[in-house]
């Protein structure tokens, strides 16, 4: 991504490439409890993204020298499947990108989980991107929050995440793949629900001070919408008892 104006037209007749308005999110569907063997799990379809997340723990910390007698160690593994998108992610195994994403996602949850309740243990968050279409880190954080709630791991707050960026000189909520690749800038944010604290903030490209203020406002609004969807998914699972049969 660069700040230079590319020749891709991102806004046509006041609408974005997929027909959305500036403030509109892609269609989102979330599901909880999709992996009965895991302690907690969730699945999200966010536009063209399909991401599955499983949470295990708190369990014995391996290797032992990672463990801390003061708090649980949060471990996060973000991985993109070799078939997740057509071009650049065609190799399996860790890459510079997946290591970075694992780290930023881990830091979000290190600050949310009440780790001090589980000394000498680790909590594993496994995130697998089955299909990618831009914004996988934000979708991953949103789905991992659901999986952690499903696992019954004590958390201070729920978190949801969205990227806001600039394309065609307009601020856009929830960038898609083309907007991410050819837009002017991109700012993924994760915002906790109760006290609206910023758990993740990254930036690519250039933005003015005024634009950032506006982006924070747009992201907070979008995260509220996402939180509604998260609670609807959890409520559906717990209220209506729509669970898979007991795992044997």
């Amino acid at each position, binding site marked *: 991504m660069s700040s230079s104006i590319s020749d891709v037209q991102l806004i046509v007749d006041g609408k974005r490439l997929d027909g959305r308005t500036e403030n509109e999110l892609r269609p989102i569907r979330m599901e909880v409890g999709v992996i009965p063997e895991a*302690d*907690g799990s969730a699945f999200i379809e966010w536009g063209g993204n399909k991401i599955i997340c499983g949470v295990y*723990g*708190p*369990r*014995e*910390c391996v290797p032992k020298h990672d463990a801390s*007698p003061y708090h649980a160690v949060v471990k996060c593994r973000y991985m993109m499947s070799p078939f997740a998108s057509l071009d650049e992610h065609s190799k399996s195994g860790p890459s510079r990108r997946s290591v970075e994403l694992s780290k930023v996602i881990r830091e979000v949850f290190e600050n949310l989980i*009440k780790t001090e309740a*589980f*000394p*000498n*243990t680790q909590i594993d968050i496994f995130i697998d991107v089955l299909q990618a279409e831009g914004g996988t880190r934000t979708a991953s954080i949103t789905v991992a929050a659901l999986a952690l*709630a*499903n*696992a*019954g*791991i*004590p*958390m*201070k*707050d*729920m978190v949801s995440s969205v990227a806001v960026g600039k394309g065609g000189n307009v601020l856009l909520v929830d960038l898609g793949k083309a907007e991410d690749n050819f837009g002017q800038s991109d700012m993924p944010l994760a915002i*906790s*629900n*109760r006290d609206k604290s910023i758990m993740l903030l990254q930036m690519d490209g250039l933005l003015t001070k005024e634009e950032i203020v506006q982006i924070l406002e747009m992201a907070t609004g979008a995260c509220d919408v996402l939180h509604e969807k*998260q*609670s609807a998914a*959890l*409520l559906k699972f*717990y*209220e209506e*008892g*729509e*669970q898979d*049969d*007991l*795992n*044997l």
Partner: protein
Amino acid sequence: MDKKIILPGAKISDGRLNIPNTYSDGTATYAAVIGTMDGAGHYLPLETRYRAYVGDVVIGVVVDSIHAGYRVALNLPQSGFIPTRNIKIDLQLGDFVLCKIRSVSEVGDVDLGEVRRLPRGKLIKFPSAKVPRLIGRKSSMLMLLKTYAGGDLMVGNNGYVWLSDKSNIPLLLKAISHIERKAHKSGLTDEIANLLKEETGLDLPVPQGETYE
């Protein structure tokens, strides 16, 4: 009673309360795990990790045998320990045991006593937060399940449930998964009784009033 499901971070009280699975920021108290809140403001977790307390009756699997005793998997991060000097029976790897927690150390090491080996059967995992519903008031649910399944079953505080080989295991699994799904609803025992009657086509008398040990 009108129960509402609340998520982590939801406010429980405007004051500081010291109850499990919540936290306080100094002024108000918030939920830390997903739970239910009734009209009177009582918060009950729906999903928690099991934490060991002295006196809990737990079910475990023997996973290791060392000179001084046996290690037992208990649905906890650390395995529990049965010192050989505390027991008179010989245990084997894979045995299911029912025991009582004697002590829990600062770092979470669990010592077990009053060990009883369970006969052949099946061990399943049940959410520990929902164990009281599986037992029922005066163990009414347990008696109901035992009567219709025709065999024994044991529930540990840690969420492990042992089903005897002699009982109707498919029927029990169906009933238990139903309890797991509807654990926060009222009138559960009647619902399960109906389900069992339908499944078996029998209407059996259920003994009442036994207390769970």
